[in-house]
């Protein structure tokens, strides 16, 4: 029962926002190095995103792991699709794949 509720909440979150980063801390004040790395990459590319601080909500902190079948945070969602955690985002960025991927999802990049 409560599992459905949290899954519904998370689904609503990733469907309502084009780019959602589940993270420890906030985009302005990340509280974990891995979350910080993804924030830096997204900021560098000029991606507008919504940060969800899992440290503020135990239900989300556990729920997002089950929802994505992924054991760690951060987790990046684009247009409702789970893209990856810190390693994958960094690897995509370094391989030059992240920008075209975001463009293919029609995410606006504000180049600095």
């Amino acid at each position, binding site marked *: 029962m409560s599992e459905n509720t949290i899954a519904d909440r998370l689904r609503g979150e990733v469907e309502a926002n084009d780019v959602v980063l589940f993270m420890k801390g906030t985009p302005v004040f990340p509280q974990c190095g*891995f979350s910080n790395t993804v924030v830096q990459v997204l900021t560098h590319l000029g991606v507008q995103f919504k940060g969800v601080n899992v440290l503020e909500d135990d239900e989300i902190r556990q729920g997002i*792991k089950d929802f994505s079948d*992924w*054991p760690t945070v951060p987790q990046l969602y684009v247009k409702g699709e*789970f893209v*990856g955690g810190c*390693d*994958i985002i960094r*690897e*995509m960025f370094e391989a030059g794949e992240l920008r075209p991927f975001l463009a293919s999802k029609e995410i606006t990049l504000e180049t600095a």
Partner: protein
Amino acid sequence: MAMNASDIERLIKEALPDATIEIRDLAGDGDHYAATVVSSAFTGKNRVQQHQMVYKALKGSMDADLHALALQTSAPEA
């Protein structure tokens, strides 16, 4: 709680017997590792699916025993 590099390698090998595994202890504290895993089982899988296969092999250790495992996965080059 910490975990040995050899334990990580053993668990991955059990699930992916053909895997080539390279593990580095990043901080020397048995708690922060980087692993590179190459296995034919990854062929045709995207990165998320590849990482999920490794996490499953570690059977929940990612939550309980390992603080950080930086992961890089790929299929063998044809």
